[in-house]
């Protein structure tokens, strides 16, 4: 059995091709059923996201080429797209490359945004669906479970998922390094810009409990606050309200500082020095940058955040290299498992056949001799066992070695034929 992958992704196909062959929740079950109806596909799973459509199949090693054509044909036929239009964008992987590909996709190394966390959930869902349709078997089950554990390893052993590469995510990450848990924290928006709103949305998504919007015109503040079921206040109340805010995102069009150093000093005193994270995404700036020198106050302007993002992008490349190393090791292990798995039945059969012969002959001889002391009986057992093991040792170790090198197919078959093991 061989693992075969046929698919296309954001790397090989533009969106107008991807959308033509993508599966929806409604028709993916039907797709899986149609896929495993292909004569040469023994097991199958379909992964369909906005960035990729990939078909994983377990196929017979000899029918690799046929299976490949069948699956490409299935994709074209199922979506009523001419095969000639699809073919230039399709890629095929089998053997080691297909295993590595699944591991890389699950670990989010093949994603458009490397390290984004959604892909693992999407693969899990795709696999569960195929399992429910009984379209997966021993090989794909093992492959996908392994892929999930590899993805988990990559996430815990590298920082690939922790490196925020967008400004609003970098802000959330910084907030978490200052406050730990964001539950129960309050975020204040000063000004009602789009970017501030986006950052606030991420913070709320990460657990921030309360949102306060402060704006020059109260109507606008109320409108934005209602989107977060938060509170609105006018700019006159700024300083009073600041004392209750842990995170501040400022994005007004004001020409000078809206929050100066002295104000931060006063507010911090009222807060009994509880830390404040002030994010200034306005140009010209709203918050006096020297406020960063005050203890327990962290002021980041747009360039600072951009700097963090750049550092993260750099770190991520290094982390990706570490992740690739982990994956290479896991791929090797998986292939070893599969190979030894394939050689195993032959070895077991060979051994049990030989043992059967030995047992029968020993019993026959024992009966003929008659009165035999226990010690002598044991000696005969030991002698025959040793002979057997010595004779079987070369073929068994040859089979094992071939299995590890991946040349098992021919040798296996030969041994089976030679000893009539399939009878």
């Amino acid at each position, binding site marked *: 059995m061989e693992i075969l992958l046929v698919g296309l992704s954001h790397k090989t196909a533009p969106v107008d091709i991807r959308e033509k062959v993508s599966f929806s929740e409604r028709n993916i079950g039907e797709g899986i059923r149609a896929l495993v109806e292909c004569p040469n596909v023994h097991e199958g799973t379909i992964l369909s996201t906005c960035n990729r459509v990939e078909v994983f199949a377990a196929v017979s090693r000899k029918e690799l080429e046929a299976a490949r054509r069948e699956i490409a044909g299935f994709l074209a036929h199922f979506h009523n797209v001419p095969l000639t239009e699809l073919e230039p964008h399709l890629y095929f992987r089998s053997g080691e490359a297909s295993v590595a590909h699944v591991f890389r996709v699950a670990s989010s190394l093949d994603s458009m945004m490397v390290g984004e966390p959604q892909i693992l959930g999407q693969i899990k869902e795709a696999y569960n669906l195929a399992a429910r349709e009984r379209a997966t078997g021993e090989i794909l089950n093992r492959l996908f479970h392994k892929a999930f554990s590899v993805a988990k390893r990559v996430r815990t052993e590298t920082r690939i998922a922790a490196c925020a590469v967008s400004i609003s995510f970098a802000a959330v990450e910084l907030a978490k390094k200052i406050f730990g848990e964001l539950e129960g924290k309050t975020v204040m928006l000063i000004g009602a810009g789009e970017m501030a709103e986006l950052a606030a949305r991420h913070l709320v998504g990460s657990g921030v409990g309360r949102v306060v919007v402060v704006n020059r015109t109260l109507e606008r503040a109320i409108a934005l606050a209602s989107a977060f079921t938060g509170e609105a206040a006018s700019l006159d109340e700024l300083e009073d309200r600041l004392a209750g805010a842990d995170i501040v995102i400022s994005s007004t069009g004001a020409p000078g500082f809206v929050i100066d150093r002295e104000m931060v000093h006063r507010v911090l005193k009222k807060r009994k020095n509880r830390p404040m994270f002030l994010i200034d995404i306005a140009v010209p700036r709203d918050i006096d940058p020297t406020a960063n020198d005050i203890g*327990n106050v962290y002021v980041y302007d747009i360039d600072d955040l951009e700097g963090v993002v750049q550092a993260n992008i750099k770190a991520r490349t290094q982390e990706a290299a570490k992740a690739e190393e982990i994956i290479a090791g896991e791929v090797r292990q998986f292939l070893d498992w599969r190979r030894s798995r394939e050689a195993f039945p032959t070895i077991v059969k060979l051994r049990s056949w030989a043992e059967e012969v030995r047992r029968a002959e020993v019993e026959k001889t024992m009966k003929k001799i008659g009165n035999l002391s226990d010690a002598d009986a044991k000696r005969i057992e030991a002698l025959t066992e040793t002979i057997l093991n010595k004779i079987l040792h070369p073929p068994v170790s040859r089979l094992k070695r071939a299995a590890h090198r991946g040349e098992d197919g021919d040798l296996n078959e030969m041994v089976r034929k030679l000893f009539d093991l399939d009878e």
Partner: protein
Amino acid sequence: MEFIFFSASLFLLFVATLHYLLFLVYRNPVVPRVARFSLFLALAAQGGFFLVRTLGGGMPLGTSLYESLIFFSWCIVLCYLLLTLKYKIPVLGAFVIPMAFILSAAAALLPNKGTGEIPPALKSYWLFIHVPLSFLGDAMFVLAFGAGVMYLLQEKQLKSKKPGVLYHRLPSLEVLDSINYRALTIGFPLLTLGIITGSIWAQYAWGAYWQWDPKETWSLITWLIYAAVLHGRLTVGWRGRKAAVFSIVGFAAVLFTFFGVNLILKGLHSYN
């Protein structure tokens, strides 16, 4: 037997230290598990050491510098393991456990490894109350020190706006500050009780509660420093950086009370 227990504990502390430091750069979940496991074994080995000494020689707690160093090391490991029940942050180990190892290693280098002679006047069970209380208090201050150093490093990362590897490795300021606070709120009462019991014992043994022995004086200075941090924290919100800096200064006082008084200023508390 004693020697086997001690050597085993020293080796295990070395393994734990190595793995905690390794975990700073090498993110593999197995590494801190190895460290933690060795730490438990080290705790048991040191326990065995004291058990053997007690069975053989009577009162082995802190009557010689050798024993004091090992006992201090044991207290640090114990307090660290207790604290990590609440805070599951193996990175803290990299800032605390090397200290336990260094103390034990220093003990191994001492020429005089015997039990100290205690004057008959001091042969009292107060030893078993006064010494553990003081040492456990000091061990908590080691943890506060570790958390304080980590706080300052993480704060520097955040203030400089150029987050490096440490930024990702270290926990949040909030967590570090709360470890610091917790260690102080446990350590301070222990130190207070240590001083009080010591003073009662002194009354029994020497007939005076307090006689400005260097150890007494420096303990009081240490106590005042930690009292100041806790007071500032509860009243005017001395948190974060200030608390971290104070627990580092306080720790310097602890070290001086422990070593300086013994090695430089001679007094009633000096070891043989």
